[in-house]
């Protein structure tokens, strides 16, 4: 039997959709018993949320004011202590999991499997390399398996029948003081979360300015979509970094992805290739985005955007 310890991600109030997606991956490990651990300053309500999720056998709760903000250097030694006896340690491949889990793997004396996109056996996994231009099948040769999960590859699990037992644990590992949280600036757009949205409207350099970039907001609002951006748009200062979609930004898998003024650099395409339907609007008929688009439209963005917005608004009525 595989004993899986899954690290929950949360913002202090709610468990992230990435956690439920990582659970789907954990459940794909043959004969897995899944424990979920949550580190927080006030972890009880979070643990209650996790306890209802499908496939969770038990929830471990670490309550400590020091975990009010998730700092890898503080969580890692405690997670390593709790990982004793587990065959697998998993975390979502978000900036939280990607930052933390290699530190855990090193302390456990193993290399990590990054960005698991499919589980073949308890020890064998598929993962993208070269910005998704190749897929590697890798086998872990000694337990434990430490892996981050590419969340775009897995659907979130739902709420299950049972309520898993919650256990308060107090790891003895001392918390280092060499790393301190200072501040976080969180964008509050009022739009759906980019990483879990079913529809995403993204803008690229073709929009020309930060002011023009805001014009895609109206379309996104009409569609109930999240807003994304290409690296070029972020580098040009049209959009903040957290909107970046691509290999080095967010990897997403919405039902509908509308790319506006995005040429389609390889690293951007890597971030969207699991989208069910890709729509590309670009003035350049040679833009590589059209190679992957399900529906392409060549034309002037600034003429098309208001028309599209009207059609969508009309369809919604």
């Amino acid at each position, binding site marked *: 039997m595989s004993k899986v310890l899954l690290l929950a991600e949360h913002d202090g109030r709610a468990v992230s959709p990435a956690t439920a997606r990582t659970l789907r991956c954990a459940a794909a490990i043959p004969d897995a018993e899944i424990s979920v651990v949550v580190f927080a300053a006030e972890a009880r309500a979070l643990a209650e949320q996790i306890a209802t999720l499908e496939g969770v056998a038990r929830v471990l709760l670490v309550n400590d004011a020091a975990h009010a903000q998730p700092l*890898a*250097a503080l969580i*890692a030694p405690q997670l390593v202590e709790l990982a004793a006896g587990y065959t697998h340690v998993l975390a979502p491949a*978000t*900036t939280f999991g*990607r*930052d*933390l*889990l*290699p*530190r855990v*793997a*090193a302390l456990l*004396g*193993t*290399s990590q*499997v*990054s*960005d698991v996109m499919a589980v073949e056996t308890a020890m064998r996994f598929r993962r*993208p*390399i*070269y*910005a998704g*231009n*190749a*897929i590697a*099948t*890798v*086998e872990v040769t*000694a337990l434990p398996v430490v892996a981050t999960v590419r969340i775009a590859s897995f659907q979130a699990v739902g709420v299950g029948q049972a309520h898993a037992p919650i256990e308060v644990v107090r790891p003895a590992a001392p918390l280092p003081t*060499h*790393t*301190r*949280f*200072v*501040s*976080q*600036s*969180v*964008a509050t757009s009022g739009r759906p979360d980019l*990483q879990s949205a079913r529809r995403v409207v993204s803008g690229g350099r073709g929009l020309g300015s930060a002011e023009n970039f805001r014009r895609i907001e109206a379309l996104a609002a009409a569609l109930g979509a999240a807003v994304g951006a290409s690296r070029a748009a972020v*580098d040009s200062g049209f959009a*903040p*970094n*957290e909107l970046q979609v691509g*290999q*080095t930004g967010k990897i997403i898998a919405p*039902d509908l992805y509308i790319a506006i003024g995005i040429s389609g650099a390889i690293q951007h395409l890597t971030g969207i*290739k699991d989208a069910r339907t890709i*729509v590309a*609007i670009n003035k350049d008929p040679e833009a590589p985005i059209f*190679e*992957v*688009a*399900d*529906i*392409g*439209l060549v034309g002037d963005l600034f003429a098309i955007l208001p028309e*599209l917005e009207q*059609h969508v608004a009309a369809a919604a009525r």
Partner: protein
Amino acid sequence: MRRILVAIKRVVDYNVRIRVKADGSGIATDGVKQSINPFDEIAIEEALRVRERKQADEVVVATIGPADCQPQLRTALALGADRAVHIVTSETLEPLYVAQLLHKLVEREAPALVVLGKQAIDEDNGQTGQMLAALWQRPQATYSSKLELGDTAARVTREVDAGLEVIEVDLPAVVTTDLRLNQPRYVKLPDILKAKSKPLATLTPAELGVALVPRLRVVQVEPPPQRQKGVMVKSTAELVAALRDKGLL
């Protein structure tokens, strides 16, 4: 002497369209242009800027790999690094192994700061910096987009999923770079000549007392599934109709 260690990796150049070998054993690299991993170029640049601000005295650049990694070290020297260390091995560069080798090098060099890319664009593991920090029992500041260095601590702005996070880490520490930390400079021709006389030391894993214990085995490498080419529409009205057909509006 305040020292910054920059760890770099030689990778297939980011402009190369890679090809998977027909036998599924890996990526074809024979005759393919190789370069410094782009995130590591940003790491070199950041270290040079810190030295130029007189906040460090020396920038040491290190790499791990076979003999043909030396052109990338020479490039780093031409960019302005003071000296280079090449850990020579043709073994598989598993993340933990790389971190163990760097850890031994860090013990010898005693840097105030280690800077490296957040990930290498070949294997996309994104593990080395965090693992080095773990083995060294020092702080890590990953995905940095701004670095403010003080005497005993650094304040680092990190690009995280929710936005930007600022943390403070005591020195020595490990910092990994994100895209927007800086814009790397270009190599100047006279500097390429000058770099030839800069010191480049070689070491072996045995000399550092580290042996590879493989934990991961690559079973197979294959090309990703291709998306079917879609349809081109001629107007917004046709686009809307196509979206309706797919049940998306």
